[in-house]
């Protein structure tokens, strides 16, 4: 091949590739522009009888939406608020979203009409979000990662915000930890998936250290955390506070996937639910008998499914094109 041919091939190729990239980016941008302007202001509130979620439909992706709890397949109300994760309880909403560009995120506290009342910068990639039943406490989980330069290793941090005192607890890692009743110290503590009880200051969460992923019970006032059980991830406390729904690593090995399960806190009995697909989500209770969770379908699209909390029956499609479900009782 002579130099002339080489230059010709290279120039043609590079120009074609540049054109392809520009067109692709332009089309993606135009599509996202339409999505960004979707929704109706005031269409979604945190009042009762509805299910709140994050839409994954092409037309209004990312927008906080709601459906009637009695008719989840029915008409959807779509708000103008966009979030990566959303949850609500007791008239307070939590919205995790990118701030500007790529590197910074924020937690927005939403009031009953989805107006932002407070913004907190988040350091790391937000992942889990919860609100206490009374709407007074909020919790989130972020992945804290470097980048290629630290081998892509990650760790998680779980934080809480108490709206009555405005006290922000950036990480639970400073709490006094007891494992199996004994005080325990380690550099590799990771917390994620907080779920609140009605009792002030009390919560459950996942704590990992070494190869264990424990269910822990925490007390924000005493700043203590104690382990209850191994192999429990992303717990979610039932409304009657007797059980915890969570994702259980199959054979204790996360590489094999997760099974949604329910743990009875008093007896320690574990009930695997009828859903046999891999659920990588923090489940949400719709009521004392039903657990909901998101299942990704194709890239960027998810559906919310529901399954009976006693292990019977079969999973049913609850809300198509949705994730981050929260019941507003």
């Amino acid at each position: 091949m002579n130099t002339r041919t080489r230059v010709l091939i290279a120039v043609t190729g590079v120009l074609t590739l540049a054109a392809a990239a520009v067109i692709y980016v332009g089309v993606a941008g135009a599509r996202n522009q339409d999505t960004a302007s979707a929704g109706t202001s005031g269409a979604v509130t945190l009042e009762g009888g509805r299910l709140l979620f994050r839409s994954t439909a092409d037309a209004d992706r990312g927008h906080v939406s709601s459906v009637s709890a009695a008719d989840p397949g029915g008409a959807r109300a779509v708000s103008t608020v966009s979030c990566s994760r959303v949850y609500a309880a007791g008239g307070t909403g939590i919205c995790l979203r990118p701030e500007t560009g790529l590197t910074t995120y924020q937690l927005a506290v939403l009031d009953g009409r989805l107006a932002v009342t407070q913004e907190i910068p988040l350091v790391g990639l937000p992942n889990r979000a919860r609100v206490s039943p009374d709407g007074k406490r909020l919790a989130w989980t972020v992945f804290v990662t470097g980048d290629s330069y630290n081998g892509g290793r990650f760790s998680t941090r779980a934080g809480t915000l108490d709206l009555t005192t405005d006290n922000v607890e950036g990480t639970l890692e400073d709490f006094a930890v007891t494992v199996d009743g004994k005080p325990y110290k380690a550099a590799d503590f990771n917390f994620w998936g907080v779920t609140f009880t009605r009792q002030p200051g009390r919560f459950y969460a996942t704590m990992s250290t070494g190869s264990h992923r424990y269910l822990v019970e925490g007390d924000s006032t005493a700043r203590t955390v104690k382990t209850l059980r191994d192999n429990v991830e992303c717990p979610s406390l039932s409304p009657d506070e007797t059980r915890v729904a969570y994702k259980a690593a199959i054979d204790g090995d996360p590489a094999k996937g997760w099974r949604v399960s329910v743990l009875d806190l008093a007896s320690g009995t574990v009930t695997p639910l009828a859903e046999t697909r891999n659920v990588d989500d923090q489940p949400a209770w719709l009521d004392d008998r039903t657990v909901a969770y998101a299942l990704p379908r194709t890239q960027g699209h998810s559906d919310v499914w529901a399954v009976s909390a006693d292990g019977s029956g079969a999973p049913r499609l609850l809300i198509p094109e949705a994730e981050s479900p929260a019941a507003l009782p």
Partner: protein
Amino acid sequence: MYLSTIGRREHPGGVSKKSFALLGGNVFALGTVSLVTDVSSEMVTAVLPVYLVLGLHLGPAAYGVVDGLYTGATALLRLVGGYVADRVRRRKAVAGLGYAMSAVAKLGLVAAGSSATAIGVVLTADRTGKGLRTAPRDALITLSAPEHMLGRAFGVHRAMDSVGAFLGPLAAVAVLAVAGSATGVEGFDAVFVTSFCIATAGVLLALFVRDHRAPKPPSGTVSLRAAAGLLRGAGVRRLLIAACVLGLATIGDGFVYLLLQDKEDIATGWFPLLAVGTNLGYLLLAAPLGALADRIGRLPVMLGGYGALIAVYLLLLSPLTGWALFALTLGLYGVFYAATDGVLMALAGPLLPEALRTTGIAIVQSGQALAYFVSSVLFGLSWQFWGATTAITIAAGTVLVAVAATFVLLVPRRKARP
């Protein structure tokens, strides 16, 4: 090749612009391919955590599984790639295959959708491509520049490579800004597609790289036996041991940045910027320090680089705080990389017979990478059990011992055996 020539100042001459002009187009062609490819791969690296967590909602453990596949894939393949390249005497073709594999993997990310397993497979293919291409590329550099200019050649190549790594994340942010990142995976897909286009352009630019295909060596020259025989040569063996010892003394970027962060309690959002600081130092200094290595000897420059690493560890132990700490630590860390990474290859190249050069380079690189992995694990453990101060003190002591050992191993001997 005699060990006695390694550190010797053979061709004294100024570090002038003219001396870089003598390098020949091939080094710049290889550098351009690396630059363009690095823009592409660092674009993906920059957005991948965000994509997995925010775009696909992967939980902590699933992310860990993907990440494990990502990092564990390359060491053995590098040796295989090196040997095959020597065996078929087509270093450019093997490197090109590696570049092409990584390019196609970028499209694979779009096709993999939300399946963690598929993403793991695609990322493994990407790493495999990187493993395949590194040793043949470095062997081509050693064959593209006169021996007394190898330090400059690697310096120029590594500097161009770093420019790519520097631009990659900026390109990703620019694409996301145009395509919109807040609401969906389209923005990420746009990054992957753009990254694919850039990587493919890099493969096309490889058209301008000339392969060095020496006449076919006598049969048996390139065999597994001959490859193993490389290690019987005292020079190669000493170099490999030195590379491993120095690898053992390096604790890993992540730890250095975490220790800095620990000391100063800066917001984690600034974390990626620490790497940018180091990279900036690296790209500015790689070519000048490579030229200096050609002038005063490669061994002193490399050992000086490790001296800079000791200084980094001592700074982490020192009472110094604030911007001075950051500037000095990151600057010296950049000096460490600029004085060691390419210079080691420039040291290795002439020691290795041309027929087995790619295999030899792959062996040295793999040995160093393995030692580096071991030291990261050990450092992590000592940090956990004995605390940061003790761990850094041990690390600094290890570098000192490693520098002494390397000096003994590689210092020019007056009476070298043939």
